[in-house]
């Protein structure tokens, strides 16, 4: 399986996402924001970072990139798309996911190992988790407060489209503790925390077993590989 990782001006975690794809057993393909060519990949990742310096709104200018025309078409045709942090912000700006992300309610940038509940295990990116499983992956954002109007929030919850919720601590003022959501089809997933930083023992969050041994993020990438094998 070939998974494209799109680099935008100001992307920071594109290389980390490529590494996560490789560790999960797929081939990462570096894609460029200024191109219209998805190079025949089977899935897409929009990585974290600060595209265009967060000018205008987080993810807003990147969402107008040439390659985003192809990303929207591919997503609507069912291709798995994962947006992490700034990538999640781009997916909302591109209207592939509802809601928006605003500045953390406490006004500060936050970086911590964050516990999440996986509430939806039927998406292309979460099928390898158990329903209700708690995972720990890094979170690092300044503008991660998820917001939407009450009707949209009710609809997301009613349709089971809240994929991840913050546990113990709501780190950024997100409404209803929402950390990540999916589209109706379950192929597009966006979340603020960073699964790609918890994929290799020695470089992940601390666990009860050992320091930096957490690899809870790996199942995002193995899930999508399994999905592609089932569909192939």
């Amino acid at each position, binding site marked *: 399986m070939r998974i494209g990782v799109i680099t935008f001006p100001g992307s920071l975690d594109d290389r980390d996402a490529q590494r996560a794809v490789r560790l999960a057993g797929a081939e990462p393909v570096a894609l460029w924001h200024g191109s219209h060519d998805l190079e025949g990949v089977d899935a897409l990742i929009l990585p974290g970072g600060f595209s265009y310096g967060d000018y*205008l709104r987080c993810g807003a200018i990147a969402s107008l990139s040439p390659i985003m025309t192809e990303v929207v078409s591919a997503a609507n045709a069912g291709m798995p798309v994962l947006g992490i942090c700034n990538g999640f912000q781009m997916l909302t700006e591109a209207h592939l996911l*509802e809601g*928006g992300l*605003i500045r953390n309610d406490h*006004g500060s940038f936050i970086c911590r190992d964050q516990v999440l509940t996986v509430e939806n295990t039927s998406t292309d990116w979460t099928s390898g988790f158990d329903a209700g499983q708690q995972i720990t992956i890094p979170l690092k954002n300044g503008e991660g*407060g998820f917001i939407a109007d009450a009707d949209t929030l009710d609809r997301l919850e009613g349709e089971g489209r809240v994929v991840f919720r913050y546990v113990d601590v709501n780190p950024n003022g997100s409404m209803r503790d929402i950390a990540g959501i999916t589209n109706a089809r379950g192929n597009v997933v966006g979340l603020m925390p960073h699964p790609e930083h918890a994929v290799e023992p020695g470089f992940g969050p601390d666990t009860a077993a050992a320091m930096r041994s957490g690899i809870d993020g790996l199942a995002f990438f193995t899930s999508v590989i399994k999905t592609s094998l089932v569909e192939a």
Partner: protein
Amino acid sequence: MPTIVVDVMPKAELLDPQGKAVAGALARTGHAGFASVRIGKRFELTVDGPVDDALRANVQQIAEEILSNSVIEDVVNIDFGDESPEA
């Protein structure tokens, strides 16, 4: 050259953490009497031709679709720099 001004504000019902931080600073420095502060954005679009109906429609669209995000913000004013009705 004519300049068109577009004003965008965070939605009234949403928390504005920037405004809240400024309100805190005002209170700390002895400027009492301000119930709240909200921070928005002002865009100045300088055009190199006449401001006609087509351009007005274009600016209206840009304001709603690019300069603002209707999920989190409202376009509160568009000033075309003349006496015409404002959006």
